[in-house]
C-alpha cells in the first residue's frame, strides 16, 4: 500500500485520479475534441453535499464525464463494536446510522432481537412503535424535501418544514427524553407508556401539520422553476435501480411498489390502511413527489393507530430481557437480580441466525444477526440502504451538469451516518 502521509491535499487528488485512470475508471481527454478535462474535487466537506463524502469529478466544461465517490469519512466500525456489546447497548449505535429517523433504526433493532429471543410484544407497544416510526419517516422526508428546495434555490419551504420537524422532536422528547439520537424503546416494548402530554402534543401536531404540508406543496409541486430544475434530472430506470439494490422511496420513484411494511408486515402494519405511492421516471421530481405522498400516507397510519390505540401493557412480560421498573429494583429480590444481570450484559441469547428488515426512511433497513449463544452478537451486519444505492450515483449524474448532480444527491437522501456506519 502506498503511504499518502507526505502528500498535500492537491497532490492527493492528483494521486487519486492517477490511480483511477490506471484502473480505467477515469479518462483524461474528451473523446470529442481531445482537450484536457478539468478535475473537480467535490467534498469531502462541501456545504452542498450535506454530509462528509467526496466525489472526484472529471468535467468537460459544465458536463460531468466521470465521477468516483470516496466514502468512509465517518466510518465508526459499528459492526465491530457490536461484536463486543450486549444487545441493549447496540441500540445507541443504530441511532447514529440514519440520524434523521433514529426511531426506525431503534425499533428495527429491537424487533430483530425479539425475533431471536422469541419475545411477543403486546399490541399497544406495537401501535406506539408504529406511531413513532411513522413520525420518524415524516421527519426524514421533511428534511430531504426541504433541503432539496434549498438546493434548487428556495429557502423558505425548508424553514416551514423544519419548524414541524422541531415539533416532531418535541414529541420524541416526551416519549423517550431525547431528540436526535433517540435510543427509543427497549427489547420487549417501550420503556414507558405514552404520557398524556405526549398524546396531547401528538394530537395538536396532527391538527396543525397538514396545513403546513399543503402550503409547502403549493410552493413547490407545480412551481415552474422547481419543475424545470428537477424533471428528468438524475433519472434511473426500474431495471437498473433493482440491479443496484435500490429500495424505499428511490425505488418507488422508479415505479416499483416494493415496501417492506406491506410485503413483510412487522409491528402490526397489516392492521392499517395505506397506499404505496409510485413514480414513473425515477428522476428527482418523482422522488420528491413520492416522499411527499408518503408523508400523507404516514399521517393516515398515525391517525389510525392513535384512534385504535389498544389498552394494555406497553411491554412484553419478559423479565430476562426487559428491565424491571426502578422502584421494584429497590424492594424486590428478583427485580434486583434481573436489573443487575441485564445491565451487566449477563443474559445469554439463544443460538440462531436472524434477518429482520424494516422500511427505513431510505429503504429496506436490514439487520443480519448471527448469535452463537453468547451475550453479544457473533456477527451483526447492517443492510444500510444508503450504502447500497449510493454506488449508483456516478451512473446517475454522468452526462449531466454539476448543479444537477447536487440536487440528484440531495434527492437521493444519502445520510452520511448510514452510508459509513
Amino acid at each position: 500500500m502506498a503511504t499518502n502521509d507526505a502528500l498535500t491535499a492537491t497532490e492527493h487528488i492528483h494521486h487519486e485520479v492517477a490511480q483511477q485512470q490506471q484502473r480505467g475508471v477515469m479518462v483524461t481527454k474528451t473523446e470529442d475534441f481531445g482537450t484536457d478535462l478539468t478535475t473537480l474535487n467535490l467534498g469531502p466537506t462541501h456545504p452542498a453535499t450535506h454530509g462528509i463524502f467526496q466525489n472526484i469529478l472529471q468535467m468537460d466544461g459544465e458536463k460531468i464525464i466521470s465521477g468516483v465517490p470516496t466514502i468512509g469519512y465517518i466510518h465508526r466500525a459499528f459492526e465491530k463494536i457490536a461484536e463486543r456489546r450486549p444487545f441493549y447497548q447496540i441500540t445507541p449505535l443504530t441511532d447514529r446510522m440514519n440520524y434523521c429517523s433514529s426511531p426506525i433504526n431503534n425499533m428495527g433493532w429491537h424487533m430483530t432481537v425479539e425475533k431471536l429471543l422469541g419475545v411477543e410484544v403486546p399490541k399497544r407497544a406495537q401501535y406506539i412503535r408504529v406511531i413513532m416510526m411513522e413520525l420518524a419517516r415524516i421527519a426524514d422526508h421533511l428534511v430531504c424535501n426541504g433541503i432539496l428546495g434549498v438546493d434548487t434555490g428556495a429557502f423558505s419551504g425548508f424553514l416551514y418544514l423544519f419548524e414541524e420537524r422541531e415539533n416532531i422532536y418535541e414529541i420524541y422528547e416526551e416519549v423517550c427524553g431525547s431528540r436526535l439520537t433517540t435510543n427509543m424503546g427497549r427489547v420487549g416494548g417501550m420503556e414507558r407508556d405514552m404520557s398524556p402530554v405526549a398524546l396531547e402534543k401528538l394530537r395538536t401536531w396532527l391538527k396543525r401539520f397538514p396545513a403546513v404540508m399543503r402550503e409547502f406543496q403549493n410552493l413547490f409541486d407545480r412551481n415552474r422553476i422547481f419543475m424545470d430544475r428537477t424533471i428528468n434530472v438524475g433519472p434511473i430506470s426500474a431495471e437498473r435501480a433493482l440491479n443496484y439494490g435500490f429500495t424505499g422511496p428511490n425505488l418507488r420513484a422508479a415505479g416499483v411498489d416494493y415496501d417492506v411494511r406491506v410485503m413483510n408486515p412487522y409491528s402490526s402494519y397489516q392492521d392499517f390502511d395505506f397506499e404505496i405511492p409510485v413514480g414513473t421516471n425515477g428522476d428527482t421530481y418523482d422522488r420528491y413527489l413520492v416522499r411527499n405522498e408518503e408523508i400523507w400516507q404516514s399521517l393516515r397510519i398515525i391517525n389510525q393507530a392513535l384512534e385504535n390505540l389498544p389498552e394494555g401493557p406497553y411491554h412484553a412480560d419478559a423479565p430476562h430481557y426487559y428491565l424491571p421498573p426502578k422502584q421494584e429494583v429497590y424492594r424486590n429480590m428478583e427485580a434486583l437480580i434481573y436489573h443487575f444481570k441485564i445491565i451487566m450484559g449477563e443474559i445469554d441469547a439463544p443460538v440462531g441466525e436472524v434477518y429482520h428488515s424494516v422500511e427505513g426512511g431510505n429503504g429496506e433497513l436490514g439487520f443480519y444477526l448471527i448469535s452463537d449463544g453468547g451475550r453479544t452478537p457473533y456477527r451483526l451486519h447492517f443492510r444500510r440502504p444508503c450504502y447500497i444505492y449510493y454506488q449508483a450515483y456516478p451512473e446517475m449524474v454522468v452526462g449531466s451538469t454539476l448543479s444537477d448532480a447536487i440536487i440528484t444527491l440531495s434527492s437521493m437522501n444519502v445520510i452520511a451516518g448510514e452510508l459509513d456506519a
Partner: protein
Amino acid sequence: MTDLNTSPAAQAKAADYVKAHAAISNEQLLARLHALFGADTFSDVEEPYGLLTATVSRHRIHEILDVLHGEKELLLNFLTTMCGVHWPERKDEELSVVYQLHSMIHNIRLRLKIFFPIADPVVPTMTDIYATANWMEREAYDFYGIIFTGHPNLIRILNVEDMDYHPMRKEYPLEDGTREDKTDLFFGR
C-alpha cells in the same frame, strides 16, 4: 402519480397476480433449486426463523446466482445483502460469504453461504450479475480480506487505504492492547 394503479380493474388484476405467485413455500423453493442445480449442490439446508438457508461450494456460487437472476419461475433477482463472516475455529473454512436473495414477486428469500480457507480467500465476483455487488464486495474485502476475482475496482472502501490488515477478523480485538490510559492501577482491573 398513482392514477395508473388505482382503477378497480387494475387492482383486481394485481391482487390476482400476487395471489397466484405468492404461494411458493420453502419446500417448493428447495425442490426447484434441486431441480435446477442437483440435490447434492446444497448442504446444511435449514430454515432459521423461516428463511431458507443452504451452503454451496464457492466454485458453483457464481453459476447459481447467475441462473437464478434470469430464472423466470422463482424470480430471485434481487440481491438484498451480502457480507463476510469469520469463523476462526472452523478448520479450512475460516471465512464465509453470505448472500441473501429476494424475490419481490413471490416474497421469498434465500440465503446462500459459501465457506473457504483463510489461506486461499478467493471467490468469484458477482459484479457482472448485480451492480450492487460492487461495494458489498469491496466492503467484504476491506473488512475480511476476501479477494473477489474479476471485480473491477477491488480497493478498500470504508477504511483508509494505508491499512495493512482486515479489521473485522476475529483476531483483532476491539480495544487497542497497547493503550496505557485505561489500566487501573488501584484495583487492577
